[in-house]
Structure formats: structure tokens, C-alpha cells
């Protein structure tokens, strides 16, 4: 029953609570290699547009040359205004998302105030840093994007990207991660600098169209990216984050926007 930490730097730290309860252990240093191909998730992107942030991810998860799953959800809601998009090992990434989600809730409930955006961004950075032992073993690497909406800021739409060690970078306009990330990044750079409308001035439907096209293009040269599967009717997951919270773009809207944009439709 001794659990008062209100004055310490650990106040409201859910990871600490999990360790105390023995639910989460310190990183173990395991020896050996994974005898099967590790499952990987790929290609997520986030950019700011006129009404907030758009976060998108394709649906494919691969293990070596095998398609493990073609309906994976890599765009995960963490709280009312935060989304984490994952590239890398889903085994680690989904667990990180779970820890983050509970950490933010736990902080708000126990400390009776919302965690700051800086605090949230740092919390993810810390989880990545804690995962470094696994990464050095060659498994469980995660390179996520984090998007959120901060009402108190002059530039409320926020996009962050990370490296595998946990360094955090704030994106000015857009970010992409995963094996299709370089293609997506080139497309977003092109649209932003040379396209008709800079990303930040796009309305929602135009933003969705660009996200769909970028993922479709990334899938063209990258077998690990699912892109848009027209026959299987599988579309990327796209979420919009703004002042009102998070909305998931419906299948019908994705379908009609994508088909309307096809040159031969």
C-alpha cells in the first residue's frame, strides 16, 4: 500500500508502476538470433494541412518475403488528440502504443492535469531508448511518427519523427517512415515545393488524395508496402487530428476520392 510518489520526479509515471507490479521488466539482454523472419510493418506518413494533421499508413505486414497480414493497422490512437504511426516491428510497436496510451491516461488521472505535448513526445522517446538492447540484437526495431494537436501553441498541429535510438525531431510540414518512407518523402517534398498547393493549404479531401497517391506510389517499387489494393478493396488507414480530436476517414470516402482521382476511371 506504500505508493505515494507525488513529490518525486516519478509522479504519475506508469512505466514505473508497471515495473513495481512486475508487469513490465527491465530490458533483458538475450543472446542468439530469431530463428524465423521477423514481422515488419512499413510506410507511414504524416503531414500538416489546412485543418490539422493527416496521418496515414498502408496495411501490409511482412516477414521476410512473406506477407503476414494485409489488414494491419499501423496508425494507432493514443489519446483524444494523439496518434502514433508505426514502422518496424509490430510486436514492439503495439506494446509501446499500449504503454503510451495507458501512461498518458494514468498521468492525467493521477496528477489531475493533462501531460504536456513535450512530455508526451519525450515519453515515446524514452520507450525507444529503453528498447535499444533489443535493437542491438537485431530485432524489435521501431521507427515511429507521432502526431498531435496542441491548442496552446501558435502552430497547433504537431508532427514528430524519431530514429531507432529515440532521438526526436519535429517536422515542419511532413514526415514519413518505413521502407516506403523515402519515396513518400520525395512525393511530399515535391507536392510541398513544386505542386500547385503547399501541403499546409490543402483542404481535407485534397490532403487525403495526396496521401493515397503517395502510398500507392511507394507500393509500386516496395513489395513490403501494401499501398491501395483495388481488388481486395483494402485502403490505407487515414486519420485526421484536429481541435475536435481524431477522426478516421471512412472506407467510402477513401474509395470515392481514390477512384475519382484515377485518370482512367
Amino acid at each position, binding site marked *: *500500500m506504500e505508493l505515494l510518489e507525488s513529490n518525486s520526479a516519478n509522479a504519475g509515471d506508469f512505466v514505473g508502476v508497471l515495473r513495481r507490479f512486475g508487469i513490465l521488466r527491465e530490458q533483458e539482454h538475450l543472446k542468439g538470433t530469431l530463428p524465423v523472419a521477423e514481422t515488419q510493418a512499413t510506410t507511414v506518413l504524416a503531414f500538416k494541412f489546412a485543418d490539422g494533421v493527416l496521418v496515414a499508413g498502408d496495411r501490409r505486414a511482412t516477414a521476410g518475403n512473406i506477407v503476414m497480414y494485409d489488414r494491419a493497422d499501423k496508425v494507432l490512437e493514443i489519446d483524444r488528440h494523439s496518434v502514433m504511426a508505426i514502422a518496424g516491428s509490430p510486436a514492439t510497436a503495439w506494446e509501446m502504443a*499500449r504503454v503510451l496510451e495507458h501512461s498518458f491516461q*494514468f498521468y492525467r*488521472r*493521477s496528477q489531475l492535469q493533462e501531460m504536456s505535448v513535450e512530455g508526451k513526445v519525450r515519453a515515446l522517446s524514452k520507450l525507444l531508448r529503453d528498447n535499444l538492447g533489443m535493437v542491438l540484437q537485431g530485432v524489435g526495431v521501431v521507427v515511429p511518427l507521432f502526431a498531435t494537436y496542441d491548442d496552446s501553441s501558435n502552430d497547433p498541429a504537431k508532427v514528430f519523427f524519431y530514429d531507432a535510438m529515440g532521438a526526436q525531431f519535429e517536422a515542419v510540414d511532413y514526415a514519413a517512415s518505413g521502407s516506403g518512407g523515402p519515396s513518400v518523402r520525395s512525393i511530399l517534398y515535391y507536392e510541398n515545393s513544386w505542386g500547385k498547393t503547399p501541403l499546409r493549404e490543402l483542404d481535407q479531401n485534397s490532403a487525403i488524395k495526396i496521401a493515397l497517391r503517395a502510398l500507392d506510389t511507394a507500393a509500386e517499387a516496395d513489395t513490403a508496402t501494401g499501398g491501395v489494393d483495388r481488388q481486395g478493396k483494402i485502403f490505407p488507414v487515414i486519420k485526421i487530428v484536429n481541435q475536435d480530436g481524431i477522426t478516421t476517414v471512412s472506407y467510402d470516402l477513401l474509395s470515392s476520392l481514390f477512384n475519382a482521382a484515377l485518370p482512367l476511371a
Partner: protein
Amino acid sequence: MIDEPYRWVEAIANRREYIESELAAGSPTIALSCEEGILFLTFGKDRKKIFEIYDQIALGGIGHPGDIERLRMMAIELASTEGFARSVNDVSLRRMATYSFSPALKQAFEQVYGAPYLARLLFAEVGAQPTDDLFVTLDYDGSMTANSMGAGKGRDHFGVISGSRRSAEQIAMFLRKEPVEPFKSALATAIKAWGIGLYSLDEDHSEILSDDELKSFLKSQLKDYTLEAALLERKPKTRIAFTELNDATLQAALSEYEG
């Protein structure tokens, strides 16, 4: 000396008397089922007394702020670790109260060399229907009442704690006559119920107030108290059901007692 059984019983009795006197001034806290969810309501003087515990669970407490804080943290940690390790659907107020809180409170109360918890708690868990709502009260000695853990008895659509047993009973008698209402009417009902509870905290007040008397009593008291209320929504937009009511809603509810 308290190794002897009689001394032990005496020590416990003294302790009970002391805690009861410490809690006696506690402002009633009410949780009431309404169509939209569970309304949590109290009036306080200085500090917050209604808290979110988990997605569907809230807590109200009277007693020493330090003790309420320790118990609140215990509840949040229990619920959060369970929700993390298993699933949010596995977090249950019934289990938390029966297996964790009741034994912990009883143990602290009966170990006469240690300090007991100076607290009386009211937990509520919102369900899909008003008949699924669960209300649990826990006392400093670990004794527990719930609206619906046993079969066969009439189910209350509310839970209440107050400084004295009589005050809580008066509130319960009043609320039992009220049906499950829409949120707005439930808010008005809960304010009246609180007024009845506060009035009967005074041992000299044995009579039952008429509507007019209650109104003028509330009017006279509201200068000293601040209304605090929250709603556990039955159908929230996200998984999280708890929302604190904003000032505009609270002021509108109090407008008939102004002036």
C-alpha cells in the same frame, strides 16, 4: 496491553469513535443513475472530491485529504495495471472493491498500532443500462455496501456517503422515491438530495423539510459551498466516460437558489 482480547476490543471501539467524529462533518457525496449515465455530485469548501479512476469508474470521498489521496492512487494503479496487463474490459469495480479495498481498509483499521484510513469512499461504475450501474460504498473499517451484488433485493439507482449514517439514510429515502430521469432533472434532484443530507447532518434537525423549507435552507448554505459534479457517460465518444461538468451547467442548475 492490547494483546489482551478485551483491550483490543476497547481499542477498536475507541478508534471507531474517533474516526466517526472526524468524519461527522463530511459533506454528502451522491452518485445517481440518469438516462445519460451516472451523475456524481457534491458541494465542497476548498478541495476537489470527485475523481476519475478508470474509463468507466469514478470515486467520491470524504475524510482526510491525505488518506483519500492514498486510496485514490491505489484505485488508479489497480485499475490501470489490470487494464494494461489484460484488457480494459477486465477492469471491474466489483473485484476491485471486494478483493482489494475491503481487506486493505479492514487491515489498516484493526492494526491498532498503525494508522487507519480516515476516509469513506463512494465508487460508481457506469453500465450499458441504468440497471447495470454499480454503486459501492466502503467505510474506514472495510465494511462495504453495494446496490447490486446480492440477488433478490430491490436495486437502488444511486449510491451515497455522508458524514453520518442518519444523513445518508435521509438522502437514500428521498432518492428511492425518484425514478431514473434525464440528466438535467437528475442534476436538480441530486442538489435537493444533497440539501436534505446536509440538513440532517445536524443532530438537532430531526424533522423532514418541506419543499419550501429545503429551498430556503439550500439558499442559505450555498454561499459557503461550491458545487462540484461529473458525469460518467453511458455512451461516450471515446472509451473514456468521465467528464467534469462545466461552470455554465453548474450555474444553470443552481440558478433557482440564487438571490
